[in-house]
């Protein structure tokens, strides 16, 4: 190890491992993944369907599902800022002034962080492995085994996350913009799901070969009884091996592109013109101490909006959201009696969640990253002004995206010659989406102020959303905790009184969360 670490490549890998060992994020991911394993072990589909929880089939299935449901966003969280953080911390001149080759830096960064990612993922596998000694009533457990866990973990999880990690690393390294990485993973989900729907008609072996997450492997045993599935040994056939080989090629290609295109330089700065001697009269503008807080709040909100608008990722995120939401209507048949506005709500909620979580995180952590905090914090404005300005700005961004999706959906509807439910966009978006957006932004603000670490808050947000989705998918759904009303409303319920009461309840929860963010904002050096 010391010999490897003595060369620059080894040094970079070692530095990345040490850096991650001192961060909370990897440990938080391990806890989340272990919790996920525990949930799927005891309360997953195995018990209900009579599958043995440590059968070869179930182990491989769990690793595939784990890759699909949790990995892409977590991969982005861990791999997105690997290079950008060196530039943010301004360590880049210290690194690149050393005799290190670009390929050593790139490969060291990628491999170091990918190892950390694999360690985090291994928490899922190890928890699953350890739980063989435990059981809940009616659970079938076969004789304890180790090899299938190791084999399937590498084949289904590690090799699935490798190209995605390389893609996130490439986007992050080349753009040095973490939000573009998040946008890429959200787009990956959309493209992946759309691709899977499109590929339904092609032969199964092609579907397996073209599926980066190997979700279609399960189809090989479609219709088999639980008894048969418990005896199955999952083979790695030629199509699956070709798929994994292709994933390796994709990963290597991404790293090769980074190596070719990566620039160590920063944007050039231009010096000011020469000094000019000008007589100066000391400006003494009046300050009315009793000025209402509205003007600082307006200034803060306008600045936050301007900063969000200037984000390179915002245009992409808005475009992906609009295209994905509208394409889901345009590409697939929608019955004429269907309310188009209602059909966009679920997909829009997913994107609004991503916008609320990641852009609120950006708004809350930008001041620290850019070292503006001491200037802002010494200004005579309350925490309420600074926090509510950020919440308002992100909410406005969400509203803009909502309007764009609504307009696109309405155009699709008109192009198809149906005006049914055209008047329902405003009430549906206004009653269902707007309070949900406010709630998500306020919740994200509270999360980011309490956690104080961007990636930790992002990981926690994704975990909470995943747990919520998992509960709803299992049929556990109630308005008391479902502030988004996901799968709890229909266009008909717009006229019902309980719906308005629930939205007021959601807004009150949002206000409480905003207050929490204000309360927990520590204005301290």
């Amino acid at each position, binding site marked *: 190890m010391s010999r490897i670490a003595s060369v620059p490549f080894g040094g970079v890998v070692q530095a990345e491992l040490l850096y991650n060992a001192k961060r909370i994020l990897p440990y938080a991911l391990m806890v989340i993944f272990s919790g996920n394993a525990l949930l799927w072990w005891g309360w997953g589909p195995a018990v209900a369907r009579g599958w043995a929880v440590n059968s070869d089939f179930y182990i491989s299935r769990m690793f595939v599902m784990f890759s699909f449901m949790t990995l892409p966003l977590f991969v982005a969280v861990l791999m997105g800022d690997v290079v950008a953080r060196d530039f943010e911390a301004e360590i880049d001149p210290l690194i690149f002034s050393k005799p290190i080759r670009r390929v050593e830096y790139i490969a060291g960064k990628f491999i170091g962080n990918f190892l950390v990612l694999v360690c985090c993922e291994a928490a899922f596998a190890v928890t699953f492995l350890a739980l063989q000694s435990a059981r809940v009533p009616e659970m079938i457990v076969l004789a304890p085994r180790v090899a299938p866990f190791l084999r399937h973990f590498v084949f289904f999880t590690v090799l699935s996350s490798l190209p995605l990690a390389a893609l996130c690393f490439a986007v992050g390294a080349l753009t040095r913009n973490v939000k573009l990485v998040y946008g890429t993973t959200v787009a990956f989900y959309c493209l992946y799901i759309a691709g899977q729907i499109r590929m339904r008609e092609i032969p199964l072996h092609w579907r397996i070969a073209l599926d980066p997450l190997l979700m279609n492997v399960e189809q090989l045993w479609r219709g088999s009884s639980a008894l048969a599935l418990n005896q199955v040994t999952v083979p790695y056939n030629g199509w699956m091996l070709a798929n994994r080989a292709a994933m390796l090629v994709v990963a290597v290609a991404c790293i090769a592109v980074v190596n070719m295109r990566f620039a160590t330089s920063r944007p050039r700065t231009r010096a000011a013109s020469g000094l000019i001697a000008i007589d100066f009269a000391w400006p003494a*503008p009046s300050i009315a101490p009793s000025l209402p807080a509205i003007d600082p709040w307006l200034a*803060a909100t306008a*600045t936050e909006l301007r900063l969000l608008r200037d984000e390179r990722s915002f245009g992409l995120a808005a475009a992906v959201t609009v295209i994905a939401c509208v394409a889901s209507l345009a590409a697939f048949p929608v019955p004429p009696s269907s309310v188009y506005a209602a059909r966009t709500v679920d997909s829009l909620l997913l994107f609004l969640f991503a916008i609320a979580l990641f852009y609120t995180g950006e708004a809350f952590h930008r001041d620290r990253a*850019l070292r503006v905090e*001491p200037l802002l914090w010494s200004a005579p*404005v309350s925490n309420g002004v600074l926090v509510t300005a950020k919440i308002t700005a992100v909410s406005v961004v969400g509203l803009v995206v909502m309007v764009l999706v609504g307009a696109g959906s309405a155009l699709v509807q008109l192009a198809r010659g149906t005006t049914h439910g055209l008047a329902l966009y405003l009430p549906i978006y206004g009653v269902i989406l707007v309070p949900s957006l406010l709630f998500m932004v306020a919740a994200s603000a509270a999360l980011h102020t309490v956690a104080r670490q961007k990636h930790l808050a992002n990981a926690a947000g994704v975990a909470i959303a995943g747990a919520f989705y998992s509960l709803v998918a299992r049929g556990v759904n109630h308005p008391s905790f479902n502030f988004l009303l996901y799968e709890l409303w229909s266009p008909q319920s717009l006229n019902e009184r309980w719906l308005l009461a629930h939205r007021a309840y959601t807004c009150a929860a949002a206000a409480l969360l905003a207050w929490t963010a204000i309360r927990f904002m520590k204005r301290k050096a």
Partner: protein
Amino acid sequence: MLHIDAVTKTYPGVRALDRATLDVGPGVFGLLGPNGAGKSTLMQVIATLLDPDAGGVSFDGVNFLSQRLSARRLLGYLPQDFGFYPTLTARQTMSYFARLKGMALRDERGRAIDALLDRVNLLDVRDRRVGGFSGGMRQRLGIAQALLGAPRLIIVDEPTAGLDPEERNRFHDLLADAAANDIVVLLSTHIVADVANLCSRFAILQKGKIVGVDTPSSALATLRGSVFEASISSAALNALPPEVAVISTRRFEGALRVRVFASGGPPSSAFSVADPTLEDYYFSVLREDGAVN
């Protein structure tokens, strides 16, 4: 008048401030000290960004620990380490901070911003994004934002770092102008020349304690006739008697140039009387306190 009363702040394993007590009136007041002496910690406490473990800070009757919002209305703060939003222009940045300071009237705000940008020589580039500014330009913008809203108390922490000599002079003029308007300016620095040029009074901070408060002229008077200078060998330097305090040693044209403080006359015939400088005073105070080896 700024009152700093027995302010104490301890970080794990380090006492950053140890019952620091100061009274600072209008004018430029210098806070000198080596790196790690506690200057920035004291600045952050006064700027309401750090809670002390004990002690208090007040200015013109406003308690800076319990009346933070009122305190911030009086403040202009330039931290040692700060940044700006790179996508905003200089004017947008200034406008934002001005409105946070309560400057609601648009025309008045615009005039004040233009005057300040003019003063720091950034008027020509006011519509350029701050992300494209050089280090010196950012520093000047930082100074300009600290002067927004006619603050009564200006705190500047190592402000001339990164400025070229001409910009540094310009900055000195700015602070001197500000102080002429009956404003308290607290200047933290480890550059003794900045204090000598600007400050009517100064304090020396060492290991979190105030180890000396004086005016530059009386500080120099205490050393007059007691500072000697000579070019000597390293062996001769080591042979100096213990009662002779070496203030500084530096290489000049290949020889070792030594300045010493000796109240009983020159240590040897090689030494001649030298005009004391504030740097001599600074080193002699630190040496008395055991900071300089």
